[in-house]
């Protein structure tokens, strides 16, 4: 492939290392240091993509992250292909494959191009006005719309790359390593502040680093040379961290910023191997210095979007930095001096520049003079009225502007040949991050820019993002601002000797006139979304006034470039059309991120097993070795059931629950929350947080407690044991543990600071093995032979502090199954061993490990509730028929008052009942609704089934349910209407088994 479009003399391109890459299936070559854009241009390729709406051919417009047109799909691999990548940001590497988007069959011949001819029918918001008839057709229309919309394609396989986070805390963060950023970083670091310098490019130095013009000198050195020396010194400083290829995405309050550090996207496949692709930097800076520079503005004129039409600064950068000639026949179109720098730079490289078209009457700045001295033809007060060439710019037509710039001095039209047009509409300070942080802007009339006004945090903006565009101003003002901001005497950049070319005249026309009526023209404001000036005018005509409305109606600024180029023109056109002052139209809010941020980067390592924490009990390994299935309970992994061979869950649960009631079962209850309560007011504290009374509970005794919210609804429950006069251990539900502790701490610290009570979580300190069933006593006896297990010495609802071997443990005789049952709590490190010994001791009794599912079944047989399954935040203890646990005597407890509101006292509230199906083998579906009459409309739902199982011990199906007025429905027939059938049930007492609690003392 020929590189005839290269000029030598670029310090930034390594012409010795040739790199091959594919674009739209064809192989090309570039050099190390090229971006995809520069390499394509070097291969004389301008046509890169198609626009969003009209599918117009589009080329490369810029040389940076503001690129609206040249966005491509990178990579073919289903897992790592990436849509909407800016060709101007891709550094080429061997094996790079990219292709054009939003075109079919190819970018050269795109069927969608027909939209360009339908465009008269597709003005702003056309879709709000049509596709309504017939109503049923909208879905068909929509499918078509969706397929023509969208740009690139999403990957279809999981990402194989790794992303990471890093928290950074620094004294000073400098954003942007252009000339002012370099000054700032050096000054901060030299003043012993730990400093972080970030730049989105792969090289430091911004635009100055390739500024070779003799017109711009600092300390008598050409500005680029001076800056180079500064950078060399900078790199030697030790308390400075420099990160390139790092773009700040978001600037939040309290100087919290997010930046994306790109680590491997510029590397070839084998170079990337096992490297982190991108890192999200979470930066907390004491001070922030924003030096994000400015963006060159395009000009808005008819057909200003053809491939070959670029920003003048881009044409310059491609020549000076990449050594690439963008066109053989270049013309510049400008309203300021920038284009002259570009033109001169090209001329000096021997690149043909035909002329400059300048909408200004004249200018006598030294740079303009230089251009004239070089014999460059300048068309003063002329404008382009149209451009020609479909897939590549061929010609432009220009006319002389009238004085007011709104029409023409005469009807002469000059047509000029031109394959590359460099346009410059002046510069827009990059204030995006500043405004994201909450900063307020002010409008500067003289050059029509918004610049920082009020800072919301410890930050400053310096350089051109602060509205300083002339080299001498940049250096002087930056130095002054730094002194003040960092509270230092001097920066080392004080009174430098700077030579520059001052801009002497300015003129700005947001929408340049055409000889055609606006309706016939296409002056693009937002290139990517095909929003034109006439769309904006249409929106205004239809009554949309606010910039936000216009933006939304025309989609201006909604593209992947977020309107970096076009937003100012949109504002300008609105101001001109409505006669409102530009400063009063207001800006649209710039929302994070500054440039699009990969989801993977935001997520970092919080994927797969790190998506959420998992918690395991000390017995976990045993469960795994014994084929347990696990259930997620909150963050816990709990043994759910232990299938033997190819048992189904149902079979396993039937076996486990039968074995437990007939002989012995064992449950890992380690996940229950445990709170150690000490202090002289411990009893009073419990009186206030539980619905029942605690003062009289004997030492060594256990009691069930129910905890409410202040709104009277059941919140948590569990057994609490009195270990000593002022010492209790409270157990909570597994899921509720953390919330209960923080709720109780809250009351102690904020409502009852007078109480002498201390709460300490010991959930993880103890492993808990619950052995239950008629033979549990015998098993415990084998473990602790000298412990008297008689009901006299160790009755139900009591506790013993014992030793197993030499290890202390706490044993509670409590039961959630209705069986004789002991809960052994031991220091966690001995939990696994305890469990194994229980299994050994229980072998002769066929002790059967059971999981949460069997536990649920067993407690349901006894009518014990599970908070969160049988309750849903709308049940009072009365609704649950648990009046027995609610003290009438106590003056107050959390939630008591709410129980006495008119609606919480109603008799017809939903109340907990038991249900039996007429057919004992029919097991109800949990969640099924309950009704009292068939075929009524509307259907009156009385409640729903909360828990339902087939009970092997009763040989029939049982269920718990909440039913309106259920308390008074004992024996009543009700119906469960399913999709396919209706199930007949009878309301019964929720305690299905052993009402007399004989088994507890069996």
């Amino acid at each position: 492939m020929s590189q005839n479009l290269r000029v030598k003399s670029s310090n930034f391109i390594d012409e010795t290392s040739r790199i091959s890459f594919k674009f739209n299936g064809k192989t090309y070559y570039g050099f190390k240091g090229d971006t995809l854009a520069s390499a394509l241009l070097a291969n004389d390729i301008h046509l890169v993509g198609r626009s969003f709406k009209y599918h117009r051919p589009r080329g490369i417009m810029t040389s940076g992250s503001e690129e609206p047109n040249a966005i491509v799909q990178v990579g073919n691999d289903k897992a790592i292909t990436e849509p909407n990548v800016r060709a101007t940001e891709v550094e080429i590497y061997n094996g790079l494959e990219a292709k054009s988007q939003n075109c079919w069959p190819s970018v050269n011949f795109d069927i969608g191009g027909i939209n360009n001819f339908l465009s008269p029918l597709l003005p702003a918001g056309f879709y709000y006005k049509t596709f309504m008839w017939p109503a049923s057709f909208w879905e068909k229309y929509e499918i078509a719309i969706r397929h023509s919309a969208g740009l690139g394609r999403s990957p279809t396989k999981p990402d194989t790359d790794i992303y990471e986070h890093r928290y950074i805390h620094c004294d000073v963060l400098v954003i942007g390593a252009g000339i002012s950023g370099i000054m700032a970083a050096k000054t901060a670091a030299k003043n012993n502040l730990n400093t972080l310098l970030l730049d989105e490019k792969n090289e430091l130095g911004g635009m100055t680093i390739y500024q070779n013009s003799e017109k711009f000198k600092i300390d008598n050195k050409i500005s680029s040379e001076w800056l180079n020396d500064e950078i060399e010194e900078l790199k030697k400083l030790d308390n400075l961290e420099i990160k390139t290829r790092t773009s700040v995405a978001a600037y939040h309050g309290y100087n919290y910023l997010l930046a994306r550090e790109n680590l491997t996207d510029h590397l070839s496949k084998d170079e990337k191997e096992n490297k982190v692709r991108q890192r999200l930097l979470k930066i907390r800076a004491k001070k922030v210095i924003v030096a994000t520079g400015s963006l060159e503005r395009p000009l808005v004129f008819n057909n200003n979007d053809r491939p070959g039409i670029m920003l003048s600064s881009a044409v310059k950068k491609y020549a000076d930095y990449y050594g690439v000639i963008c066109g053989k026949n270049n013309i510049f179109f400008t309203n300021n001096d920038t284009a002259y720098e570009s033109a001169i730079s090209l001329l000096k490289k021997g690149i043909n520049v035909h002329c400059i078209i300048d909408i200004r009457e004249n200018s006598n700045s030294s740079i303009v003079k230089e251009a004239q001295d070089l014999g460059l033809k300048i068309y003063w007060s002329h404008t382009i009225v149209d451009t020609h060439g479909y897939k590549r710019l061929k010609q432009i037509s220009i006319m002389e502007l009238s004085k007011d710039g709104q029409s023409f001095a005469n009807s002469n039209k000059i047509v000029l040949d031109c394959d590359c047009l460099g346009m410059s509409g002046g510069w827009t300070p990059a204030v995006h991050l500043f405004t994201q942080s909450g900063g307020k802007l002010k409008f500067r009339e003289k050059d029509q820019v918004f610049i920082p006004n009020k800072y919301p945090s410890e930050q400053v903006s310096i350089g051109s993002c602060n509205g300083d565009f002339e080299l001498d101003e940049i250096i002087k003002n930056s130095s002054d601002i730094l002194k003040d901001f960092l509270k230092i005497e001097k920066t080392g950049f004080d009174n430098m000797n700077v030579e520059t070319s001052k801009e002497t005249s300015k003129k700005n026309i947001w929408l340049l006139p055409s000889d055609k009526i606006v309706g016939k023209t296409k002056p693009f404001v937002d290139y990517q979304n095909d929003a034109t000036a006439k769309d904006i005018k249409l929106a205004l005509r239809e009554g949309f006034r606010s910039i936000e409305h216009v933006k939304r109606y025309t989609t201006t600024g909604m593209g992947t470039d977020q309107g970096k180029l076009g937003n100012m023109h949109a504002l300008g056109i609105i101001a001109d059309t409505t006669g409102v002052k530009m400063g009063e139209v207001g800006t649209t809010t710039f929302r994070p991120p500054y440039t699009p941020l990969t989801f993977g980067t935001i997520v970092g390592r919080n994927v797969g097993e790190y998506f959420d924490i998992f918690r395991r009990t000390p017995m976990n390994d045993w469960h795994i070795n014994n084929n347990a299935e696990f259930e997620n309970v909150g963050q816990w992994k709990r043994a759910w059931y232990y299938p033997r061979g190819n048992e189904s869950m149902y079979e396993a649960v039937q076996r486990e629950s039968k074995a437990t009631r007939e002989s012995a079962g064992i449950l890992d209850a380690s996940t229950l929350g445990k709170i150690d309560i000490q202090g002289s007011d411990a009893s009073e504290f419990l009186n206030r947080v539980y619905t029942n009374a605690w003062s009289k509970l004997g030492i060594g005794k256990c009691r069930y407690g129910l905890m409410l919210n202040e709104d009277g609804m059941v919140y948590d429950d569990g057994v609490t044991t009195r270990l000593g006069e002022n010492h209790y251990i409270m157990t909570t539900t597994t899921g509720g543990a953390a919330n209960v502790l923080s709720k109780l701490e809250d009351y102690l610290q904020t409502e009852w600071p007078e109480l002498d009570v201390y709460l300490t979580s010991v959930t993880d300190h103890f492993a808990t093995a619950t052995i239950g069933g008629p033979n549990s006593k015998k098993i415990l006896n084998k473990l602790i032979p000298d412990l008297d297990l008689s009901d006299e010495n160790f009755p139900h609802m009591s506790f013993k502090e014992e030793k197993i071997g030499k290890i202390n443990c706490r044993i509670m005789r409590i039961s959630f199954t209705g069986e004789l049952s002991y809960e052994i709590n031991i220091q966690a490190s001995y939990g696994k061993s305890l469990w194994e010994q229980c299994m050994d001791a229980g072998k002769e009794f066929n002790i059967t490990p059971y999981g949460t599912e069997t536990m649920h079944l067993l407690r349901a047989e006894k009518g014990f509730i599970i908070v969160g399954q049988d309750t849903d935040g709308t049940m009072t203890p009365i609704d649950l028929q648990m009046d027995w646990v609610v003290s009438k005597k106590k003056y107050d407890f959390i939630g008591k008052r709410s129980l006495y509101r008119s609606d919480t006292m109603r008799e017809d509230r939903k109340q907990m009942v038991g249900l039996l199906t007429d057919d004992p083998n029919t097991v109800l579906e949990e969640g099924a609704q309950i009704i009292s009459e068939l075929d009524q409309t509307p259907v009156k739902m009385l409640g729903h089934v909360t828990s339902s199982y087939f009970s092997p011990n009763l040989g029939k199906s049982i269920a718990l349910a909440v039913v309106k007025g259920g308390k008074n429905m004992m024996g009543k027939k009700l119906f469960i209407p399913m999709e396919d059938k209706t199930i007949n049930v009878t309301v019964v007492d929720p305690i299905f088994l052993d009402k007399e609690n004989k088994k507890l003392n069996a």
Partner: protein
Amino acid sequence: MINKYSIFSLIKNAFSYHENWQKAWNDPQPKKEYDAVIVGGGGHGLATAYYLAKKHNMKNIAVVEKGWIGGGNTGRNTTIIRSNYLWDASAGLYDHALKIWEGLSQELNYNVMFSQRGVMNLAHNLQDVRDLKRRTHANRLNGIDAVYLSTEEVKKFCPIINTSTDIRYPVLGGTLQRRAGTARHDAVAWGYARGADEMGVDIIQNCEVKGIKRNGDSVEGIETTKGFIKTKKIGVVAAGHSSVIANMAGLRLPLESKPLQALVSEPVKPIIDTVVMSNAVHAYVSQSDKGELVIGAGTDDYVSYSQKGSHQIVEGTLNAILELYPIFSRMRMLRQWGGIVDICPDASPILSKTSVKGLYFNCGWGTGGFKATPGSGDLFAHTIANDEPHKLNAAFNLNRFVSGDLVDEHGAAAVAH
């Protein structure tokens, strides 16, 4: 109807280069007095005005908006529309809205792009399964088209969901409401504004309410930045700012205004053609007609009117998105923003009279108000016109916080996105 929208008017106007389109709505100055004033020019407020004029023949009314119509939560939400709510009262309210959505584009002659692409809710643990089944049964008996799906059916309906069993919180099932879907948020505000304006409603933008004038226990008018406006009926539909207006009238509401965030990805060709909501891991995603993935994040736990939220919320949401859709890892966040949502203790709205005669509140929609827009407007208009709630919004009165008869939608229902 003047200036009727259709493909024909579009073609007709194309010949005049679209120079002759009329204003979608006017920009009037406030009159001295109105029969009713709606405070808040969002979707709900504009819909209220529209139905007051259309169904209750109240034409001398105004909507006052402190900024630009549709500029609040209407223009900031993730546009999910569904009615598969648990409790009868909620189901009635939201399905009333859904029925109006189904003919709204035609009624307004404005394409609100209501797209019934279905909404799927996923279950990730056993209690989720119980809750979703409970909700599905209730929906069915309330005449709402909800079905329960097995994991395989979930995968079939949306193949890009990661349904493998070895992820942290595997998908155990889900529900699907096919009539549910999304709509174009801006179009809803603009369509109602255009419709209301045409019936003579004054839509007054950039007009901030500064005070509410009371005479004893009834209202006399409002102080605004555009002067005093006399009126006997004030309907406040100010979403996040409801409490601020209430304080002007000397009332307190059971509301907290919190930041709710959302984000969109860059546009890509169609990849997901339904709406998937996962309450347990907090991931809500759909794809807009433009091709952007539209993702709803959660609320922060503190009160804020800054329209900014904390990054941890966005990060948490995207964690969940990649857990369920690992293929989206290389998609890029294009825009992120925040809204101010007014949340009730029971996650249900307030559509109610107040202790002040002539003062009505429509608020507390929390994170899920958009879906109710047409129904909310219709029922609130009824409430204002008749000084009496419609039976469908009777349950959503203010007194429920006193009597304890809450309509608690967090317990078993999904977060109301």
